[in-house]
């Protein structure tokens, strides 16, 4: 892991990022890490594809905010975390709920991330989810798993992220919090307040900005006036890193650097992950998005599929043969063009267990609507 001061090397890193895949690869990742990362990318993609299909078939309520094309951000940034770390995902980060602490074993019941059953229970709106279907699937969490529940109010969980790690620090623990935010959400007042607060108290909060260029129907240049959003960090005197959001290794590297910086007591940072929103804002917006976004822009934005990029890296390193790479050719394809056959069996089966569980799990009984407004005083 880089030992350099991230604050001083933003420029350097930036020029590195432009070089993209030619970057020297971090020594700490083994071949099996690469294989695991690729599998997680498949899983995140498959989860999204499956949800799109379920949604289209009318089997799910609520809006689906697809993470298609942005999987490398989730997979890469979560891969280096410890079980004791906290995260706060937002609407577009559904896979984060199960990707957290996946290294402890996908089906390890003790891992610090939600099981696929719990996540599916949440999506299907069933009792078998931590939130018992009380809030929309994309606004939920699990304190037990150190996942902060977002409300819908964008950037609204960064203060809580400050709080949980402050509590840990007071207890002598060196946890870090990763908060996920769209580039549009950074305009909220509380984004500023919380990062300012974190910088004053050198709190270990890493703010991931998933810069997918669009906030619903508003292009990034109407959300902020910077070439690189990462420069926002300069105004707080904290490191601002830029990662190629399509490159899971680059995300892993930059976030790991920011996390190490945070864990060592140096304070917060911002990691801008450059990406592009593949579909509409939500599934309700697909048709309109096709109109308000220039076709060329969309084509270019979708041209660098994170799965394809990872495969190339692995081939170059000799971690994957050309033939293996062609076995699951999902890259560049939309949900409609993909079936279960296109994905590794492990991925399909893993999710199947979750869906099965969710379908079998009951809808909560009406009376629960009136429960848990207050905790009873003992």
């Amino acid at each position, binding site marked *: 892991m880089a030992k350099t001061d991230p604050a001083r090397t933003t420029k350097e890193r930036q020029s590195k990022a432009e070089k993209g895949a030619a970057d020297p690869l971090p020594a700490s990742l083994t071949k099996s890490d690469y294989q695991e990362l690729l599998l997680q990318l498949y899983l995140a993609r498959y989860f999204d594809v499956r949800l799109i299909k379920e949604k289209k078939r009318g089997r799910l*309520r*609520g809006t689906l905010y697809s993470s298609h094309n942005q999987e490398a951000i989730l997979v890469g940034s979560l891969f280096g975390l410890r079980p004791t770390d906290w995260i706060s995902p937002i609407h577009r980060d559904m896979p984060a709920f199960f990707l957290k602490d996946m290294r402890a074993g996908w089906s390890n019941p003790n891992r610090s991330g939600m099981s696929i059953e719990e996540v599916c229970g949440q999506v299907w*709106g069933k009792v078998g989810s931590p939130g*018992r*279907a*009380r*809030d*929309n699937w994309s*606004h939920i969490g699990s304190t037990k798993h150190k996942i902060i529940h977002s*409300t*819908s*109010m*964008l950037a609204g969980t960064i203060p809580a992220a400050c709080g949980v790690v402050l509590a840990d620090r007071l207890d002598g623990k060196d946890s870090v919090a990763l908060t996920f935010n769209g580039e*549009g*959400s950074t*305009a*909220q*007042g*509380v984004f500023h307040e919380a990062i300012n607060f974190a910088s004053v108290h050198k709190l270990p909060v890493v703010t991931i900005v998933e810069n997918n260029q669009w*906030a*619903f*129907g*508003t*292009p990034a240049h*109407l*959300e*902020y006036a910077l070439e690189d959003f990462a420069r926002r960090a300069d105004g707080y005197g904290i490191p601002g890193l830029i990662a190629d959001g399509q490159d899971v290794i680059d995300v892993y590297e930059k976030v790991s650097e920011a996390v190490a910086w945070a864990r060592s007591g140096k304070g917060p940072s911002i990691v801008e992950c450059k990406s592009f929103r593949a579909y509409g804002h939500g599934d309700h917006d697909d048709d*309109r998005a096709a109109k*308000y976004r220039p076709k060329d822009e969309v084509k270019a934005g979708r041209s660098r599929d994170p799965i394809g990029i990872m495969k190339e890296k692995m081939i170059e390193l000799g971690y994957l043969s050309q033939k293996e790479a062609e076995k699951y050719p999902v890259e560049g394809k939309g949900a409609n063009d993909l079936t279960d056959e296109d994905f590794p069996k492990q991925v399909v089966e893993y999710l199947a267990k979750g869906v099965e569980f969710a379908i079998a799990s009951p*809808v*909560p*009984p*009406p*009376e*629960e*609507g*009136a429960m848990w*407004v207050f905790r009873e005083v003992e």
Partner: protein
Amino acid sequence: MALIENTEKVNYLNALREAIFEEFELNENFIAIGEDIGLLGGAFGVTDGLQARFGTDRVYDAPISEATIVGTACGLCLNGKRAMVEMQFIDFISCGFDQIVNMVATYHYRTAGEVSIPMVIRGPAGAYGGGALYHSQMNEAWFANSPGLKIVCPSTPADAKGLLKSALRDPNPVIFYEIKELYRKRQIEEPVERGDASLVPLGKAKVRREGSDVTIVTYGQNVYHCLDAANNLKAEGFEAEVIDLRTLVPLDKQTVIESMTKTNRLVVVNEAPRTCGFAGEVLANVAEEAFELLDAPPVRISRMDTPVPWAKPLEMHVLPSVESITEAALRTCRY
């Protein structure tokens, strides 16, 4: 301007859209500001085409900064403009709360009338659609307790248009609750007038159904629940009068009390949380000012004091329903 070719039947959403287009056409001082209202035309399409027609100088896609959207609109109003602010969902108004209650609501008061703030803050509101905690709110009571704000909530296309036009013309700030479940509801489509003929004044309630046995006061989508309940009551031999408040602040007490002189019974229905909600406000006014007209205890049917949960059975459990309204009204009639 060819908004809707066929004026026979207009839905609630297009009625709002017409109001906005007409007023923006009439008065070039109108500026619209909100999230995704320009290029996209709004999350639900209420401002669809507005930027194309009136340009980026009059229709702003703002950053996701509710406080600054409201505050900027306030500055525009201080300097000769009129502002229409869209909250993407009325729930997000909490993020601009201080600017509304402390800056905008009080400006006229603080300046002893020197200036006023002709601003409409509008947005999709209401539950019953599975929107969960943050896409279902009716938070009008916060603003009713914050002097200086008018509050409007239409239930029909004609009212949606007429009240929005009046709100846009009002010299005071208005919080305008649009019921998103009604936006495209087929059953309530109706013809609406063009231009000034469509105006509906603020502060005037509307009797949606006449009756002599019980007065049911409501607003928003609960109007339809109450009308259905009135049908149930009829089957039981009672005639309910259903009053749609339309404007909450200022409140049309007169229409309510006049109705009470006939019915001597009151049920107030709304979907906001019960405690300190607007149903209680109506009830309190009647109890204070028309005590002698009450032959039975007045009743509130509101959302339980819970957030709006997501799963359907939970949501329905905590909200007023045709059944719970019917039951309460029957109890009242039979008291």
